[in-house]
């Protein structure tokens, strides 16, 4: 652009050249100016076309970076390009399927990897007063609305439903040959969960862990995952839904089209609830063309003294960013 300004000869016929750097397009357009007005008009039209082209591409870039972050509950049926209210929603592609006819639940061969965003942040959403909390569990839930002192924000691996509201989304890697599905967290602890699809049962006498032991099966087009062996070192969601190590957590994943993943969970935890209960259906959105990247949770942590297990008191004035 500096060159264009310095050699601003656009309106002086007969000058040797105008150099116009079409910024943002990665190319330089060199135009030799001639002596007639027709050429001037041509140049103006070309410039307008370049500007219009750059404007039209903006929604596509935003879609890759932010798609799904706003989806959440009730977003079902939204298609690509609906964000920002610019234009109408393009119809979503059909559900991608494996050779055996089952849906690819995440990334699949022939396309760049993608991630799911917009997981459930509040499992009791819409039915809080109906959740069969034990008294202590309800009190713990209420207390967590005030203190919001969540292990995940201190880089603690957080299993089952909490995996899906981790920053930057969650990737599913389905490996049919190994009969396993890996769920990769991008943000937070940057760890992974394995869902065994080979029909094995849960081991006896499991030592409780953050991700527990997950086994999956297909019920039609729905992936059903049952997880046990979970410890109590994490919250089930960002709002602090409590659980104990007696939890049996059942998840149902359905991909009705390319861009949508429906998620529903059943919480069966006699240590914290008087009866099993099932969440509403949450909707996650597909963000295409997003390779995993290295994420180290300790980065930019300016409050190590507030890390779980070392703090002396809660500081409610600070927000924690994983």
């Amino acid at each position: 652009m500096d060159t264009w300004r310095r050699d601003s000869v656009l309106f002086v016929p007969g000058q040797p050249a105008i150099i116009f750097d079409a910024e943002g397009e990665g190319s330089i357009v060199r135009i030799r100016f001639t002596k007639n007005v027709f050429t001037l008009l041509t140049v103006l039209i070309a410039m307008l076309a370049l500007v219009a082209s750059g404007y039209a591409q903006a929604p596509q870039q935003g879609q890759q970076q932010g798609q799904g972050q706003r989806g959440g509950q009730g977003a079902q049926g939204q298609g690509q390009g609906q964000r920002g209210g610019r234009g109408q929603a393009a119809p979503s592609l059909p559900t991608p399927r494996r050779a055996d006819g089952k849906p690819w639940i995440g990334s699949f061969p022939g396309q760049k990897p993608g991630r799911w965003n917009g997981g459930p942040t509040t499992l009791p959403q819409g039915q809080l007063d109906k959740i069969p909390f034990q008294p202590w569990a309800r009190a713990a839930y209420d207390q967590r609305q005030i203190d919001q002192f969540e292990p995940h924000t201190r880089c603690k691996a957080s299993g089952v439903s909490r995996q899906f509201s981790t920053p930057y989304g969650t990737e599913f890697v389905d490996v049919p040959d190994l009969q396993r599905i890996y769920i990769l967290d991008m943000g937070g602890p940057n760890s992974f969960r394995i869902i065994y699809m080979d029909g094995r049962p849960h081991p006896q006498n499991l030592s409780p862990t953050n991700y527990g032991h997950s086994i999956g099966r297909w019920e039609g087009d729905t992936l059903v995952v049952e997880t046990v062996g979970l410890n109590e070192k994490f919250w089930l969601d960002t709002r602090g839904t409590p659980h104990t190590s007696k939890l049996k957590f059942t998840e149902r994943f359905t991909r009705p089209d390319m861009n949508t993943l429906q998620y529903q969970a059943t919480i069966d935890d006699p240590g914290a609830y008087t009866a099993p209960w099932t969440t509403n259906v949450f909707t996650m959105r597909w963000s295409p063309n997003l390779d995993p990247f290295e994420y180290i949770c300790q980065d930019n942590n300016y409050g190590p003294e507030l890390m779980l297990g070392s703090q002396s008191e809660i500081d409610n004035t600070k927000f924690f960013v994983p």
Partner: protein
Amino acid sequence: MKVVRLISFVAVVLVLTTATIAQEGHPLTGTWYGDFGSSSAKRNDLTVILKWDGQSASGLVNPGPGAVPIKTVRMDVKLGDGRAQGQRGGENAGPPIPPQFLVHFEVDAKNKAGGMDHFVFDGKVENPVAGNRTIVGSWTCGNQKGDFRLRRM
């Protein structure tokens, strides 16, 4: 002497192991360490292991060769108003009213004369969401009384 050392070592390992797997679920669950006494000058160490089986709590005082099972332990909750920090309730509603976690436990322990003393502890869990939350309260034993403070390890 070697046996005593071995038992002590095992007890320490058990305590440390339990502390390592301290949980975030039920507010009572975990290993608690602190002291109790009738004044700030007269203090006694106190270690308490508490666990929740889903229906009731149980526990142990001073784990090791002289461990004493807790006779009764329970946690009563008083619900708050359920509001989140800085949310709902309007400008004049003030800060949210938090729930309270009240702890009661009783211990029968041998005294130096060979008899049994009956201790009753009543306290409140402070910073209940923090990993190293505390229980602070008072105790009585016959006509003796004082305060106690435990921090979860």
